[in-house]
């Protein structure tokens, strides 16, 4: 027997350590993780004072874990190993049937949910406008048949029940059945992202139009472009890299619009399309709708039949608003996670005929930026 073969574990161990160390020290360093959407840690500060304070050690931990060669590969190895040993959902994302990656349920935080609902409701009452509330159900709730057998309970029904108790000024638009029925006809939720598909948003917008007494959306869109290779944020968080990608569809009504994107701090961009094709180059293509997250977005469509609507929303509205734009002369979208001026001032400046609050159920249970309303 050859000598090296008899000590194969040692050979494997030493080669593995040597290759990993060499690549870590001398290989190319990443600046930004596309999957995690964050800046990666760089080589640590080696000054004696930083070492004594323990800062260097912390930075070294961050550096090695962020710059470890084959980082995404290892995350994938761990994800599939965890799955293979039965712990589906260990990283808060379920590997569901038919390629569905589904966020596990958020804990039912009744206090936060109550705060959010009462703040929205108080604001609606203050404006005196006809106001609606759309709570977009979670993928886990809508696509229950795609979940693994052992999964946590989704709280969407509880959220709807509590909302019915807590809000008066807002009219709740119950979209649970609409979307569940829609899921039998077509794909309502993305498989790799937590948002609704264009079809899902079309159903949502149609339901809104009906409730608001506005003109129906068209039945047929002549111009639907389909793009393959969409890997959403659920996919990025999951490590299940072998999941097949989604497609993203742009349903273009042909409306002549002017879109203004404002991030506060004086940075304003204008465009003449609801879609931002630059993002189709990325793995996460969802920002193709209205260029992703912005503090304040206004869409003007002078030839539309309806008046103006103010939407207080999260990212679920990116795609939804592209349908609304067809029917309203002015759609103003406020994202409280980034918008830092009083919304009442905004309303005084840009009067609206209607108010809509649109949030994903998950965000109602976790996000507390509604505090900026009061």
């Amino acid at each position, binding site marked *: 027997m050859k000598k090296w073969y008899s000590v194969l574990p040692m*050979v494997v161990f030493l080669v593995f350590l040597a290759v990993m160390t060499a690549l*870590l020290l001398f290989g190319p360093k990443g600046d930004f993780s596309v999957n995690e959407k964050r800046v990666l840690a760089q080589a640590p500060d080696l000054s004696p004072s930083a070492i004594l304070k323990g800062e260097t050690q912390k930075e070294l*931990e961050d550096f090695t874990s962020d710059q470890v060669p084959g980082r995404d590969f290892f*995350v994938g*190895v761990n994800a599939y190993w965890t799955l293979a040993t039965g712990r589906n959902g260990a990283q808060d994302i379920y590997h569901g049937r038919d390629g569905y990656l589904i966020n596990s349920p958020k804990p039912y935080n009744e206090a936060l949910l109550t705060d959010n609902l009462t703040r929205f409701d108080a604001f609606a009452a203050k404006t005196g406008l006809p106001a609606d509330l759309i709570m977009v159900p979670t993928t886990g709730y809508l696509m229950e048949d795609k979940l693994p057998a052992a999964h946590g309970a989704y709280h969407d029904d509880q959220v709807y029940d509590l909302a019915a108790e807590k809000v008066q000024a807002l009219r709740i638009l119950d979209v649970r059945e609409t979307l569940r029925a829609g899921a039998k006809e077509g794909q309502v939720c993305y498989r790799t992202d937590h948002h609704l598909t264009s079809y899902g948003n079309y159903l949502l917008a149609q339901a809104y139009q009906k409730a608001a007494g506005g003109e129906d959306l068209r039945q047929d869109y002549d111009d639907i472009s389909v793009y393959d290779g969409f890997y959403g944020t659920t996919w990025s968080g999951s490590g299940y890299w072998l999941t097949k990608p989604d497609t993203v569809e742009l349903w273009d009504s042909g409306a002549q619009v002017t879109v203004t994107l404002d991030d506060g701090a004086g940075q304003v961009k204008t465009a003449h399309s609801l879609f931002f094709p630059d993002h189709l180059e990325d793995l996460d293509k969802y920002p193709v709708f209205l260029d992703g997250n912005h503090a304040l977005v206004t869409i003007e469509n002078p030839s539309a039949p309806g008046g103006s609507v103010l939407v207080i929303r999260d990212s679920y509205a990116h795609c939804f608003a592209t349908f609304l734009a067809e029917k309203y002369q002015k759609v103003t979208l406020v994202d409280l*996670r980034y918008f830092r001026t009083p919304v009442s001032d905004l309303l005084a400046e840009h009067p609206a005929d209607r108010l809509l609050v649109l949030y994903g159920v998950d965000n109602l249970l976790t996000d507390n930026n509604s505090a900026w309303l009061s």
Partner: protein
Amino acid sequence: MVFSSLPFLFLFLPAVLLVSHILPFRFRNGFLLLANLVFYAYGEPVYVLIMIGSILVNYFCARIMDRAEGQSRRRGVLIVGIVLNLAALGVFKYAGLFVGTLKHIPALSGLPEVNIALPIGISFYTFQAVSYLIDVYWRDCPASDRFVSFACYISLFPQLIAGPIVRYKDVNDQLSHRVETPTLFNSGARLFVVGMAKKVLLANQFSQLWDLTSADPVAAGAAAAWCGAIAYTLQIYFDFSGYSDMARGLGRMLGFEFCINFNYPYISQSVTEFWRRWHISLSSWFRDYVYIPLGGNRCSKVRNCVNILVVWALTGFWHGAGWNFLFWGFYYGVLLLIEKLVLGKYIKRWPKALQWLYAMVIVVIGWVFFASPDLSSALAYLGVMFSGAPGDGTVVLLPWLGLAVIGAVAATPLGKTLWEKYRDRNWMPLAEGVLTLAALLLCVGSLVSDSYNPFLYFRF
């Protein structure tokens, strides 16, 4: 620094292995000492001074004792040395507990708060130092006259943090002469990888289940509470024995041979057997340096019982500065006494499965005392376990079944038996190599994933 971390695996370890195998032997202990200090100072930049202090005190105590004329002087030096060692342990490990407890007495409630962080590994290196002083006093081993070698022994990084408790007399020869062969290195690498897999792929995972059930045992219910306690039982074994395996593996890669610390404790068929298999280097330390000097069993029955209770109370208290640890020690002291005096002869007649079940139930209950933050939460948790209360925890448990089976099998000698049966086959090195690679990939995968944090704000 812990062994199961990326900076250790990809920076510290490669550097130490490379340099220590390139350097001529006469420089190696010096280099190892430097590496030990870097390893320790990485996590405890200031507390490394305490360890250096301990090295100096013990080195010179032994030197003085070695030269002292007459038994009483030698004994005097020994007592000074032991008191200094235990004082360090008392101040840095137990002062907070003692003062905190005394503050419950109304007259002493004005005592200041004591918040001293525990220097890592102090329980281990202090016990090593005490064993060294006593061995020198007993003339079981010579007092070291090579400071660097001695300092290297006290601070030796593989066993610094979690044992095994190595005695100077066992490694004295290895400090001056080590045989390094590819075969020894190979077995060291294998043992290290096995230990890391136990720690990262099993212990770290089972900890999540215990965290889940112990956070709210009442909501989890009785069945889930049992599963949580069993998960902790597996966690602490794989954590501790994994760490010991890594230590022994690293030792072999550097030419040292350390004692076995765990010998499949969960196949035990009595409490007495469990303690012969669990944390062997600690039990034998207490046996040799406390139990036997107290008179062991060569004394009256009553005295013998007292000796046993003292030793087990101390063993419990060594594990942590909390009254629940003292209780946990007493719990075993009492159970061992019961087995020794009454139950032992009956247990042997039981079916083997029943003997095992009896031992394991006692062990699992024992870990609840050990793992809980205090006595009252331990009792509350045990209350749920024996309440038969239903709960919502069972859904959470289902996904753990696969890992639980892997853990249960890994806690038996099955793997070792198979390996010994087929070790001479031609395909064995290949199988070992493949398993080594798989374990490395999975461990690094798990360690990397701990740091994989998609920036949540963007998930909206």
